[in-house]
């Protein structure tokens, strides 16, 4: 039994611990050095090892910071110039020859492509992962997983080539006419418009195909780590296999799966090659899924070579790069927060 008094002293202790822990940085370094001097041989080696491991960790942090500063430095002119300014983020007109550097269409294009890709890849990928981890006979699981992992290793240009000769013509010749002539779907505004196949939906689908292996394998791994004892507890209450998979296994694996999805989001906005080849790259905001789009990575790749003619043009491209990097940092942080929240509500430590 914990009395009120006890709990108060406990709290005091916790508080005083916290005070002790707040040390100035020079003090910390000094403490570490004196610790090292006073340590015996084995723990000296431990401490050296810790410092040795700190260096690469510190270096990778530095690299991120350096890249950010470099992009910021290059993007500065466009943000400072009256022709540009922060308003370029919402300005849809990109026309360097007239000093107009609105990058909104690229941001919208990237977000739409990514949205469609995630919308396709997540449900399919989850279904695949659940099949692999819960229903697939054990002997088939490893070979299947290996094939899926191989899919992730295919260079994106190969996906692009395939999409260019197969997917794009299919969308232009079959999918669009079918959707536009079928009375069930013909009225939907998103399905309108003439198309040769180079379109938003082509970009979304090819991205989805590229994300699929990551979503499947990471989610399947997350599902597999859910202990068997939890499934058995669910079965023992009279749950069916599908109830157990959906309500216990999936729920327990959700932090891992969510993180996989958010990280693949980051990969999707940054993907360049395949998407450049199939989206048509036309300077307009897409209104239907068959409209061509121009995404952030494509404009950088296409124009960096001759953007040196106007310094602002070049700077605007770097601004796009900066925004890309910030977006992917945001995704990573969201992933972290999501995992932490998920672990906390599930009482997992980590």
């Amino acid at each position, binding site marked *: 039994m914990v009395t009120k008094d006890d709990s108060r002293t406990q709290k005091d202790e916790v508080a005083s611990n916290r005070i002790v822990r707040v040390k100035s940085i020079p003090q910390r370094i000094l403490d570490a050095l004196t610790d090292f001097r006073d340590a015996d041989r084995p723990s000296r080696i431990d401490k050296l090892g810790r410092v040795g491991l700190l260096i690469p960790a510190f270096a990778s942090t530095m690299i991120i910071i350096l890249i950010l500063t470099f992009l910021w430095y290059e993007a500065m002119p466009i943000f400072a110039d009256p022709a540009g300014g922060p308003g370029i983020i919402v300005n849809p007109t990109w026309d360097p020859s007239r000093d107009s550097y609105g990058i909104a269409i690229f941001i919208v294009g990237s977000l739409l492509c990514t949205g469609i890709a995630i919308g396709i890849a997540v449900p399919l990928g989850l279904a695949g992962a659940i099949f692999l981890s819960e229903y697939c006979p054990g002997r088939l699981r490893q070979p299947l997983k290996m094939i899926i992992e191989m899919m992730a290793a295919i260079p994106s240009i190969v996906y692009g080539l395939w999409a260019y000769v197969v997917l794009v013509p299919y969308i232009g010749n079959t999918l669009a006419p079918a959707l536009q002539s079928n009375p069930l779907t013909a009225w939907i505004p998103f399905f309108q418009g003439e198309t040769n196949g180079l379109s938003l939906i082509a970009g979304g689908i090819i991205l989805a195909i590229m994300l699929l292996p990551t979503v499947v394998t990471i989610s399947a791994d997350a599902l597999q780590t859910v202990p068997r004892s*939890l499934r058995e507890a669910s*079965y023992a*209450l*009279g749950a*069916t296999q599908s109830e157990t998979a959906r309500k216990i296994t999936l*729920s327990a694996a959700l932090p891992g799966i969510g993180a996989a999805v958010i990280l693949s989001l980051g990969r999707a906005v940054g993907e360049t090659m395949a998407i450049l080849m199939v989206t048509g790259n036309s300077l307009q905001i897409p209104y239907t899924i068959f409209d061509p789009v121009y995404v952030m990575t494509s404009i950088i790749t296409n124009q960096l070579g001759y953007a040196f003619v106007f310094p602002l043009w070049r700077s605007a491209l770097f601004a796009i790069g900066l925004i890309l990097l910030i977006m992917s940092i945001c995704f990573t942080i969201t992933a972290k927060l999501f995992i932490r929240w998920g672990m906390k509500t599930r*009482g997992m430590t980590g």
Partner: protein
Amino acid sequence: MNEWEHHIEVQELSTWFGKKQVLKRISCYFKDNTVTAIMGPSGCGKSTFLRTLNRLNDLIPSFRRKGIVRFRGEDIFSPGYSVYNLRKNIGMVFQRPNPFPMSVRDNITYGPKLHGVNDEDELDDLVESCLKKAALWDEVKDDLDQPAPNLSGGQQQRLCIARALSVDPPVLLMDEPVSALDPISAGKIEELVVQLKKDYTIIMVTHNVQQAFRVSDQAAFLYLGELVEFDKTSRIAEAPTDERTEAFITGRIG
């Protein structure tokens, strides 16, 4: 009057994992409102036996069995018999506490929701009554939304008992429910088992002979897959008929 004599009847039950025979022609029965203790040295097949009674072993591909298990007079292995219904009626508490990674409340409501209870008030009542039966209510009533894995080991195990009770099974299987717990938590759960006997048929695996003698009405002694002794606990405690049982309860094997 029921048309069956005992809630569970086992007839000539043999089981195998692959080629290895684990249970050998076991016959016994479990009376209503009694506690049956199943004892035996490690690896003799106690868990396998329990897990055959609610067909949890069906999930293991290499598992095979011969013989009959009757629940309320019906053969649970007959084709068309609903294994989900069976498991709803035969609750199970595992050797290690295995609360679901969700809130205390959700742990209790999971089972009832599966079986169609959706009324919020009814679920709230269920949560309270199950936690009370498992002697956990007072400790968690202020924070039912805390994640169950944050409870202490003993609390977790009592939560698992409450969870098993949530679908109101007439029979409760317990696989060494206290072996992972400290003596105080173990004592609490032991008391609980005696309490629950009023309403449930309990089959409890235990390593602890003294505990078996304290809580059980009848006892079974398994040795290398054979049912060596099966009788009233008081009788076995006084004079075991088989020397292996005697060796086990006096601590010479086990």
